[in-house]
């Protein structure tokens, strides 16, 4: 089973999200939290912009040599006693993980946060096979109790309020006294800590994602604040790392550079609390650590992205800054996007992975304000890539008839500048007349989709082109007058000088 996709119903999802009072209350906190902290911590590091350039260059270099770095990485993992499993598809990856769990006779599996696990629908697959997957990141644990997908790639439960979480804990943790106090986030977290501590110690297999794979050393890297990823990978018999192929970087120095922009862009921290570099299984003299170390390298459509316009998307380091700064994400939240990856990065990546026929709405859900590109630590031109999807959607005749007709009508006029000017001038006057002195109108023929939710601003009585032409003319006149003045002043001065000299 795979993750259910509701991206084709984006419009309906968004409409429902806008009416969801709980969700709107939770989303109100996104801006105040992440945006200010990122700005502060970035301003504090003079080299921050330079580091972003460098992070982009490292990823570009790696992607251009991806085959070779993956081979080098694989060789180092093997040398350190680990195993690398290549997975062309989500199905391959699920099968590999299940085989390992079955061989080890696993009953329960603890999991660190992994977007790849979400992408391949791993939890459902393990559950169907009778193996209990336990999410251990606090946010992931909460949404697992609710049988929901994450709504944010680094803050999966950001769409929830504490009252909702309290209700879930009371529903699921039935062996705890019902009169206990769970009013505060602190008491909720303490309860989750106690419940999950037992799971950590009992688990047979630990599965984590990877923020990076290092070719130089055969190392996987995870970045967390809670320490759940470390307990997940240190205590069980085996550690399985789920990573997509573009996660590889060449060296320890390269990963250090990218780490300097990751946490700052994500949560506005100087560095995350725990950054963990793992190389192979437990060594001969190790008193702890996993007996087996497996890496599942997932392609799932990424290798094809290397050839076209969307290669730049593979630079993404999953910091979440684009969604934190996105007005559309801020209005509708992550679930409306209908699959695993929300926000601007999701709007570009999702059509690549599940098809533009299913996810065509996502790149359209953008105001093209450009904030995502401004804050992206690896400078992915997200608006440009969303525009590519729009073009492709149009070329493949996937856009709805009204959009195509509208664009056709506009194109007819746009190709005929005189007619365009004539028509727009008439339209402006008509609208201005229609709107009277109110400055906006509540209803407009053929534009109910717009005016049902907001007023249509009444245009100025003239078109932009008319105003532009007039302003240019006025400027030219002003310049000419100023020049004439200057000339006269110079002539007068020369004359006076000449008179003084005589």
């Amino acid at each position, binding site marked *: 089973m795979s993750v259910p996709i509701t991206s084709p119903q984006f419009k309906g999802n968004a409409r429902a999200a806008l009416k969801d009072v709980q969700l709107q209350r939770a989303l109100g906190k996104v801006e105040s939290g992440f945006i200010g902290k990122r700005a502060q911590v970035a301003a504090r590091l003079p080299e921050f912009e330079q580091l972003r350039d*460098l992070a982009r260059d490292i990823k570009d270099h790696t992607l251009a040599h991806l085959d070779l770095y993956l081979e080098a990485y694989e060789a180092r993992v093997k040398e350190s006693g680990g195993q690398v499993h*290549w997975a062309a598809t989500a199905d391959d990856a699920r099968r590999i993980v299940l085989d390992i769990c079955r061989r080890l006779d696993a009953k329960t599996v603890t999991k660190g946060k992994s977007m790849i696990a979400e992408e391949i629908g791993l939890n459902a697959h393990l559950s169907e096979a009778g193996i209990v997957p336990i999410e251990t990141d606090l946010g992931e644990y909460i949404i697992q109790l609710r049988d929901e997908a994450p709504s944010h790639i680094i803050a999966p439960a950001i769409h929830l309020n504490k009252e909702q979480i309290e209700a879930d804990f009371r529903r699921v943790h039935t062996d705890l006294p019902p009169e206990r106090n769970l009013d505060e986030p602190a008491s909720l977290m303490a309860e989750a800590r106690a419940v999950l501590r037992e799971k950590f110690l009992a688990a047979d297999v630990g599965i984590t994602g990877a923020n990076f794979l290092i070719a130089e050393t055969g190392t996987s890297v995870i970045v967390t604040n809670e320490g759940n990823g470390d307990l997940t990978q240190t205590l069980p018999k085996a550690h399985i790392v789920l990573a997509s192929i573009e996660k590889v970087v060449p060296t320890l120095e390269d990963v250090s550079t990218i780490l300097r922009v990751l946490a700052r862009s994500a949560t506005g*921290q*100087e560095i995350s609390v725990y950054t963990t570099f793992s190389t192979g299984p437990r*060594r001969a003299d190790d008193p702890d650590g996993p007996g087996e170390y497996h890496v599942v390298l997932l392609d799932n459509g990424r290798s094809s992205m290397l*050839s076209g316009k969307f290669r730049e998307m593979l630079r993404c380091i999953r910091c979440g800054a684009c969604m934190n700064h996105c007005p559309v994400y801020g209005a509708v939240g992550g679930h409306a996007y209908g699959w695993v990856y929300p926000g601007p990065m999701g709007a570009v990546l999702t059509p690549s992975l599940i098809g533009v026929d299913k996810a065509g709405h996502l790149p359209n859900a953008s105001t093209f304000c450009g904030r995502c590109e401004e804050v992206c630590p690896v400078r992915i031109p997200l608006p440009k890539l969303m525009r590519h999807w729009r073009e492709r959607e149009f070329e493949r005749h996937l856009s709805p008839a009204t959009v195509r007709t509208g664009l056709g009508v506009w194109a007819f006029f746009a190709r005929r500048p005189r007619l365009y000017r004539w028509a727009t001038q008439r339209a402006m006057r008509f609208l201005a007349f229609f709107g009277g002195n109110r400055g906006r109108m509540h209803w407009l023929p053929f534009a109910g989709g717009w005016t049902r939710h907001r007023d249509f601003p009444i245009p100025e009585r003239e078109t932009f082109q008319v105003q532009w032409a007039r302003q240019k003319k006025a400027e030219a006149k002003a310049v000419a007058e100023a020049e004439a003045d200057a000339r006269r002043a110079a002539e007068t001065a020369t004359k006076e000088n000449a008179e003084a000299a005589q």
Partner: protein
Amino acid sequence: MSRDLVLGSIRRSLGVSGGEAPRRTVTGERLARHPRGVVPERGAQPPRKRVNLFRAMLAEASGSTEEVTSLDDVPAAVAAYLRSKNLPMSVRRGGDPLLASVPWEREGTLEVTVGRSDGDQLASVSHAFRGVAETGTLVLTSGSDNPTTLNFLPEHHIVVLEARDIVGDYESVWDALRKKVGVKMPRTVNWITGASRSADIEQVLLNGAHGPKGLHVIVVGKP
């Protein structure tokens, strides 16, 4: 099978065969020479200031620190920390030679056991390989000297760090590690910057999510 599929698809997309010598040279050299990128100026300080920066940055990430003059002072510092947190006088440590050389017996009531954590210990003591001033980050390496479980299972993690081991930046850590262990990385290298925390519930930042609720660093000696 999947391996050939994936690598084949990557090469088709890149328009390469994988056998091109210039590409192999470029990647081989980068891996062998691991050039540094832009290293922030922030950590480039004389030793005394580096220690101060380390302590200030770690304090921001809710890690406490103190300085003592020698290893002889460590037992009293550990005992004082345990008392301040109302913890029993008991710690678990690994077989680290530096920690073994600490005169623990000077703190008569302090029980010091050696080994990994099985989840029952409330406090542990580790010896950090390095400290990084740039972000107040501790670097610990796995092994019987300092078992990884001691970093995560106890409620309080006390870390002994020699002042002279505080470096400016992450790159200096890698240089030191390569010098010590050669090309082979320890099974785990942990960068730790502060106590375990989460902001997953309504973005309220709280300490003690799954790992230690308290992180205390005892900086030993002259920088």
